[in-house]
């Protein structure tokens, strides 16, 4: 049985805004009976560009119905521009989380909204573009790349949870893997192009002192040892070992394998640790 949150269950048992709107400003129809869930979203937009009313009809499981109910509650009263920024994670968060295997319900909600907004504007919804990667569930490359980017997905299994792609015959799994690798590579390139702002010496000193206090000293203390910060120059951090550590034959290992590693993880990956002359 699925581990549904109380809020999700409440929205399933008492869905809000079920029904249709007689003269809607926009209608979004996504999903299919073949795939086991479908959602029709109706929106009414007033002359100020605010979504006055939102209604839905859903064919689907508990979390599909709850996601649609949540979606209508979230977008009511929002401007079209505000609604456009909604992500599937917003729907999941509103419901107090959705089991990973059911995240595709939140994605369907977001797609219905996009489709209704596109219909309101008289344009084609963006996710209908691209080429179909998963034939069993009709999922396109554009769609897969987007969920990977927005939700920081790293595995085919996650992509299946979010889009169903790969959940049928499984033949498209290698293609999904390639798409994920592509997005991750793009993001890495983007990071390289815009390097992180460098820390000033004072900021770095503070962070090092914090890391020593919070993580490293308590660990060394367990063996009766201690450590003191002597100096920070650029990425060169000089420390002095105290207590049992000062005379311990394994102190080199402690510094290299533990302290330096920890500081690289918590402060800066380029840190070089030096022991102050005794």
């Amino acid at each position, binding site marked *: 049985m699925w581990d549904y949150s109380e809020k999700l*269950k409440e929205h*399933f*048992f008492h*869905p809000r805004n*079920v029904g249709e709107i007689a003269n809607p400003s926009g209608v979004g*129809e*996504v*999903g*299919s*009976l*073949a*795939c*086991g*869930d*479908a*959602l*029709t979203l109706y929106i009414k937009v007033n002359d100020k560009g605010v979504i006055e009313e939102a209604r839905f*009809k*859903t*064919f*689907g*499981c*508990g979390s*599909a*119905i709850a996601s649609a109910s949540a979606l209508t509650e979230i977008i009511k009263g929002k401007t079209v521009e505000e609604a456009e920024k909604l992500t599937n994670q917003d729907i999941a968060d509103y419901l107090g989380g959705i089991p990973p295997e*059911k995240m595709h319900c939140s994605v369907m909600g977001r*797609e219905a909204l996009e489709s209704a907004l596109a219909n309101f504007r008289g344009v084609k919804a963006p*996710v*209908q573009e691209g080429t*179909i990667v998963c*034939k*069993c*569930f*009709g*999922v*396109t490359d554009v*769609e897969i790349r987007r969920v990977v980017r927005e939700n920081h997905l790293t595995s085919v299994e996650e992509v*299946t949870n979010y*889009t*169903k792609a790969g*959940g*049928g015959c499984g033949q498209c799994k290698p293609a999904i893997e390639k798409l994920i690798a592509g997005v991750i590579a793009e993001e890495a390139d983007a990071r390289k192009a815009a390097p992180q702002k460098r820390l000033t010496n004072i900021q770095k000193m503070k962070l090092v002192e914090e890391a020593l206090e919070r993580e490293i000293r308590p660990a060394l203390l367990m063996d009766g040892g201690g450590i003191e910060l002597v100096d920070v120059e650029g990425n060169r951090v000089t420390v002095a070992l105290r207590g049992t550590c000062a005379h311990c034959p394994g102190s080199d290992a402690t510094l290299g394998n533990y302290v330096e590693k920890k500081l690289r993880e918590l402060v800066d990956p380029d840190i070089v640790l030096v022991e102050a002359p005794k």
Partner: protein
Amino acid sequence: MSVVYLDNNATSAVAPEVLEAMLPFLTGRYGNPSSMHSFGGDVARDIRRAREQVAALLGADPDEVIFTSCGTESDSTAIHSALECNPSKRHIVTSRVEHPAVRSVCKWLASKGFGLTELSVNPQGMLDMAEMEQAIRPDTAVVSVMYANNETGVIFPVARIAELCRERGVLFHTDAVQAVGKLPIDMKRNAFDMLSLSGHKLHAPKGVGALIVRKGTKFTPFLQGGHQERGRRAGTENVASIVGLGLACELAQRWIEDEKTRVPRLRDRLEKELMARIPDCRLNGHPTERLPNTTNISFEFVEGEAILLLLNEAGVCASSGSACTSGSLEPSHVLRAMGVPFTFAHGSIRLSLSRYNSDADVDCVIEKLPGIIQRLRAISPFSRDRMPSPAMLSPEHSH
């Protein structure tokens, strides 16, 4: 809240008599039946008795009974043994609607280079005997076909298939997990070489099963180790559960009349009333060639998991073949193999009864389910007047 339990094909209540018979082996009589002292050795007598009880229910010889840990182990053992004992034959015949305990093993073996023929079923879930005859080849090592289907309850002509296999010199195994205790089964009158059963489907506890291997059938053990089960299944015996399974089989024999008369009457009334009260539904599976306790009904335009959640809220335990409950993203392989239309496949509900169900249980479902379906149909974008467009029936329209 008391629960109306109509999910007996998933698992069943441990009979109170069974629990009582098991308790001494979980308390004072904890000895190992292989021990040389009488404290342990005496327990071997209780296992022997359980073996006789299981054999008696199936018209088998006690020596033909091998205790296992579950139906899945029995199935795996049977199929692997058949292949191991016939190294020159590398082909398996099975059906498209087998339980994963057989289906996954066969698919895995196919990926390792064995030939696999999966027989199709017709819209009522029945096998085609002509297709079966054609499927058996000179290099077929084993035919494995279930006695009765767990989802629809449809009974297969296993007696005829077993005869055919004997004529052709091919081993026949049947996964009878759903049939044992619900239908009279006689190994003497049938040519089954191997038969799997599971304790928890017939009011014994989970974690015990048996594989019946006809005398003279070549056999290789699946679990290697000690000499237990005369070297055919290593591992210290799950004594309490084996004793429980033995008594459960004896009780099943006593209750078989109830299974043949009262249980199907309850099932038929439940089915008839639901189908009369709820529009746009269909029965999945052959109406008569099926287990006396099972009904599988699809409700159009609604989804199975949503039905189950509302039934659960009403205190009713059932199951569904919908995608959202199958653990995969597609509806049950059984319903798909039967060609059940998509408008129905996602909205299937299985109700499976046992001797512990009453008229009141059936009344409760008859009272609650129509409202639940109505409630979900009010949310659904589809209805009889608003059929999904052909495009909505294709996955291409998904997004």
